């Protein structure tokens, strides 16, 4: 995928509004960056948790689609833990891993960091409902 916040050429409006950048997406692993800007900041100038949630939800979808492109996916549940606030003024990067996919569900884990990949500031776990094409 190029650095377009969409899937299979379809632009996702909210992800485009956030200027999400796909760094890589392949084989169930996806990396995306959310650039820092004032409209996405919390009161301390770090990226707001709501914007991080949007990044996480999108990276989950991209990780699933990079493993196997289903007809449709929808979020069933999403749990996000914020280990510490995001560093003020810093871009944030999310790594999503779709570690398991069944006939009906996809299971994803995400880690989010800002300046150092070993210093993760948020983690997430999500389950998506997926619909696959019928086998030929």
């Amino acid at each position, binding site marked *: 995928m190029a650095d377009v916040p969409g899937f299979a050429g*379809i*632009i*996702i*409006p*909210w*992800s485009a*509004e956030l200027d999400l950048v796909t760094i890589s997406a392949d084989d169930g692993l996806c990396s995306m960056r959310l650039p820092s*800007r*004032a*409209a*996405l*900041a*919390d*009161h*301390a100038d770090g*990226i*707001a*948790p*709501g*914007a991080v*949630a*949007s*990044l*996480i*939800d*999108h990276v989950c979808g991209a990780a699933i689609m990079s493993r196997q492109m289903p007809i*449709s996916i*929808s*979020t*069933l*549940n*999403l*749990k*996000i*833990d*914020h280990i510490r*606030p995001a560093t003020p003024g810093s871009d944030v990067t999310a790594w999503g891993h779709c570690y398991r996919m069944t006939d009906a569900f996809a299971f994803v884990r995400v880690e989010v960091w800002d300046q150092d990949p070993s210093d993760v500031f948020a983690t997430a776990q999500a389950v998506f409902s997926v619909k696959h094409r019928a086998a030929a």
Partner: protein
Amino acid sequence: MSADAKIQAILASSGFSSKLAKMISVEEAGALWKLSPTAELVGNPLAQALHGGAITAFLELACGAVLSHRLDRNCLPQLISINVQFLAPMRLAPVTAQPNLRRIGRRVAVAHVDAWQDSPDTIVCAAQCEFLCEFA
């Protein structure tokens, strides 16, 4: 200052909350939160469904702002954890959320929120959030 004006001041305390606040009206002194989404909140253009991340941000904002108001603070609290359930797809149509502060301890506050589109009898998403009560 009236309750509504205080809540508006909390929403204006950060770039991201101000951005979402343009689509939000708060009723009954924070008891009901109505999101009137514009097309930029779409997460699935084919189904014209709202983005799970944007909805997560809205639910968290409602809980956090109600907590800040209760504690008489003027910025949003630090989010520790959020757990969101999506019960039904959400159309590009107004969403009403009802945040509920379940416990306010010395360090941690727990909030729950239910949201619906057509009728309060049909919940379309719900979340539980934990916040740090010690404000920066």
